[in-house]
């Protein structure tokens, strides 16, 4: 069936049966199951899932229970991408010998800790080797499974337990890594940034990814109610504000051509995103006013840059 609306998507998921089922122990308000169900339902083939250590692995497989209704493998924290490489290689070997007959998709899920930081070498190697798999980073901007320690994805100005705000600290002093550009630097056919509030955009991107041969990468923002510190009912609102403020633009890079998928008409000031979250509370004290100004300036510059990249890749034949 063609999926044009969220209702179509719900119908598709109902018809195909869930690969990730109820009973897991995710925090109320967590966006991970929305991401999983959307991504997994975009696969027209059976799916093997590989998982890095992290929130998702911990809450979905507390033995003797499992929320996975599709084959699933976890080895360690570091190696979601290399383990997915191993599964994909085994698949090619066994398919060639006729031992495995079905066509399958292989997808790896890792948090930002397992992807931006400790797993980035394994990810880089897997992308360079060209394994045919999709890697999905569910990015909640810190080591949330273990109580909010700083990661390479933690945004400038956020307070975390290992880089807390204090009398002489604004929290994180550094800008986050631009992981999507790092991944794009591997010249893989499809890289995209998505956000959990925009399920249809995520579904389209996952569909494109699964329909593309070779390594594919999705970076999906996933607000963390527990450690960003906001009420459970605000997950989607905060997720939406991340894109409406250009804090988290939605874009995709298809064979080096960049497209910005959402261009907010009236870009909202970053304060609207920040003020709902406990991790940025300290930025609203008078002495930290300049921090928000610096952040806004950087967000504006980054988005302008993204629009320029869209223009030159679409109109001038430049490739990322």
């Amino acid at each position, binding site marked *: 069936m063609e999926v044009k609306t969220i209702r179509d998507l719900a119908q598709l998921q109902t018809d195909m049966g869930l690969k990730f089922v109820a009973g897991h122990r995710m925090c109320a308000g967590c966006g991970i199951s929305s991401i999983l169900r959307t991504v997994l339902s975009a696969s027209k083939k*059976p799916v*093997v899932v*590989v998982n890095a250590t992290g929130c998702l*692995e*911990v809450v979905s*497989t*507390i*033995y*003797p229970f*499992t929320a*996975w*209704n*599709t*084959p*699933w*493998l*976890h*080895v*360690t924290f*570091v*190696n979601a991408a*290399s*383990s*997915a*490489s*191993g*599964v994909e*290689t*085994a*698949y*090619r*070997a*066994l398919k*060639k*010998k006729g*031992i*495995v007959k*079905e066509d*399958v998709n292989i997808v790896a899920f890792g948090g930002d800790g397992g992807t931006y930081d400790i797993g980035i*070498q*394994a990810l*880089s*190697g*897997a992308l*360079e*080797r060209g394994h045919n798999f999709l890697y999905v980073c569910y990015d909640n901007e810190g080591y949330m499974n273990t109580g909010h320690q700083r990661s390479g994805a933690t945004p400038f100005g956020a307070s975390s337990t290992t880089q807390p705000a204090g009398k002489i600290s604004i929290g994180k002093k550094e800008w986050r890594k631009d992981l999507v550009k790092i991944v794009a630097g591997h010249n893989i056919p499809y890289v995209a940034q998505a956000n959990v509030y925009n399920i249809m955009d995520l579904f389209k991107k996952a569909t494109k990814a699964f329909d593309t041969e070779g390594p594919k990468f999705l970076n999906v923002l996933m607000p963390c109610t527990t450690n960003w510190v906001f009420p459970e009912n605000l997950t989607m609102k905060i997720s939406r504000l991340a894109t409406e403020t250009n804090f988290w633009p939605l874009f995709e890079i298809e064979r080096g051509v960049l497209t910005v998928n959402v261009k907010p008409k009236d870009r909202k000031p970053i304060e609207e995103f920040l003020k709902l979250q406990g991790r940025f509370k300290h930025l609203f004290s008078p002495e930290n006013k300049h921090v928000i100004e610096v952040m806004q300036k950087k967000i504006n510059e980054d988005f302008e840059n993204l629009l320029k990249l869209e223009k030159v890749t679409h109109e001038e034949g430049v490739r990322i």
Partner: protein
Amino acid sequence: MNKISIKSKRVPLTGAEAVAEAMRQVRPDVVAAYPITPQTPIVEIFSKFAADGLVDTEVVTPESEHSAISIVTAASAAGARAMSASASQGLALMVEVLPATSGLRLPVVMAIANRALSAPINIHCDHSDMMAVRDLGWIEIFSENAQEAYENMFLAVKLSEHPDVLLPSMVGLDGFIISHGVEVVEIYDDEIMYNFVGSRKPQLSLFDFENPITIGPLQLTDYYFETKRQEQEAMKNALKIYLEVGKELSKITGKDYPYFEKYYLDDAEVAIVVMSSTAGTTKDVVDELRKEGKKVGLLKPKLFRPFPYDEIKEALKHTKAIGVLDRAYSFGANAPLYTDIRNALYDLPQRIPIQSYVFGLGGRDIFKHQIKDVFVELLSGKISKEEKCIGLRE
């Protein structure tokens, strides 16, 4: 030797070439290995086999040993026969994943060209790499020469994949000394050797969508202990199955595959216990001293994990003094092989004097006269609690 198979050829090969031959004959589905001296020729030769179409293995060239072991672990979980090879720092980089491979009960097999650990950086032979990982649930087999390394690879694959075992294995061969030294190696017929191991028959597969399985879940205080206990039971089973698999291999090679080799041990008054290539040198010394009428002997452990305590105790119980030669330290404790041998002897009613020697670290040569000195020392009854060094400048 009672030679049965006529389908073999004798060819001059390095240990690395012999191991690569074994891997070719085993026909793994997936090989992933990162080059590291002195293991590098194994992965190079095997890659050439694949490039020339001599094997239909999918060869992956990962960016690190951490990814190499992750790839073969995951491939094994997916149902493939998966192999790797490494040494020293490479094995050390794999350490994070090694207990996951064994904990997930995946029969991965790796050849290890034993090499010293940094620092100081050193590329030559000792056993500090495999000794450092001896408690991580991998079967460990040490090889005296290229022939043994070749045959141990088949033993390891069949033992690891046995349904009562399902544990990964490492086959050690002394870096450079065996990996690069050329010997005449008897290579058996391709079909016979492949049929010996057969194809892997995994009980579970990641590609069974009718029966989807969750591999590697979280086990907390309520289940983890039982799972690890099962792993310990599997190690006990491995001790038994090792001999069964060895008997099957005997039908092809005509050789025996005991836990350890006894060389003039049964009537020996004093014995040296030493593994790998140095055991070969020790045999020469035993021959010379026997000609002089001295009752000396050798016990050469082959299977190091699981460790055959009872059998070693029985084999050594008649001796009057034992010297254990370790090619690794256990810093702050007794040397690893010495510790296990001493443990094995604890149940004897008598207390046999046992002397610990450390030798050959970082590839330091050991000579026949030094091994002879050890026998002389043992015969003279000069046994101390001190950990002695052979060939060290004090």
